């Protein structure tokens, strides 16, 4: 149930990309016409999409909407609260 080093590192990179998208999104909610913030957000969104694809392909589904190889990978541990980051 332990994650290997490479998986944890890719996961943390994905988490950072997620955070970047959250942060720019909140700012855009109150500044929808800020072109620089929007460009930053779109950069984050692209990177996030790329990292999600990469992670899912290597390690399995992150959400129950993701495609999965047999058998269903979504339930595979460790779950987020069980991981040593």
């Amino acid at each position, binding site marked *: 149930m332990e994650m290997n080093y490479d998986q944890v590192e890719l*996961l*943390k990179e*994905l*988490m950072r990309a*997620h*955070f970047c998208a*959250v*942060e720019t*999104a*909140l*700012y855009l*909610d*109150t*500044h*929808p016409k800020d072109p620089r913030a929007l460009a930053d957000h779109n950069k984050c969104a692209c990177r996030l999409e790329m990292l999600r694809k990469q992670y899912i392909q290597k390690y399995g589904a*992150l*959400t*129950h*909407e993701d495609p999965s190889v047999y058998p269903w990978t*979504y339930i595979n541990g460790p*779950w*987020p*609260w069980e*991981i*040593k*980051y």
Partner: protein
Amino acid sequence: MWIYEKTLEYPANVSYPDPRMAKLIIEQYGGPDGELAASLRYLTQRYTMPIDQAKGLLTDIGTEELAHLEIVATLVYKLMEGASVEQLKKAGLADYYANHDKALFYVSAAGNPWTATYIQAKGDPIADLHDDMAAEQKARATYENLINLSDDPCVKDTLRFLREREVVHFQRFGEALRLVQEWKDSRKIF
């Protein structure tokens, strides 16, 4: 709708089991200024926000608070993991253990169960956004108290991230308040 993704918003590690700290951090799980209260407050206030910026912001911050709830839960879970009944008793968790064992439950550090009376929804966007700004400051202050109470650098790091987010949320709510005020003023003229 919401979709669960198997990631935390920020890493949550502990250096060693510490049920005493778990008992304190649970304040931000089920306490009056905790993440459950924050999330449910914003998600229920969003329906009566008059402008799209405020609807979007309350939806997004309410959702981020759920991610924070999960981070807090992870800290509490890891701090309790591996602790013996003897250690739980020493940490003042005997009564908690009697009911919940090591399950996560929505209580404050003092053991009071979560209640909807912790939150408000007035239907008045000016009142609600002021309430939200105050809530963020109270959450920030609670995180500062928890940082002072911990001596685990891993736990402190995660608590610092959560404290930082309250400051950002306060800022965004202030902007939403200004936008709602401008919207109200523009309606008075026409």
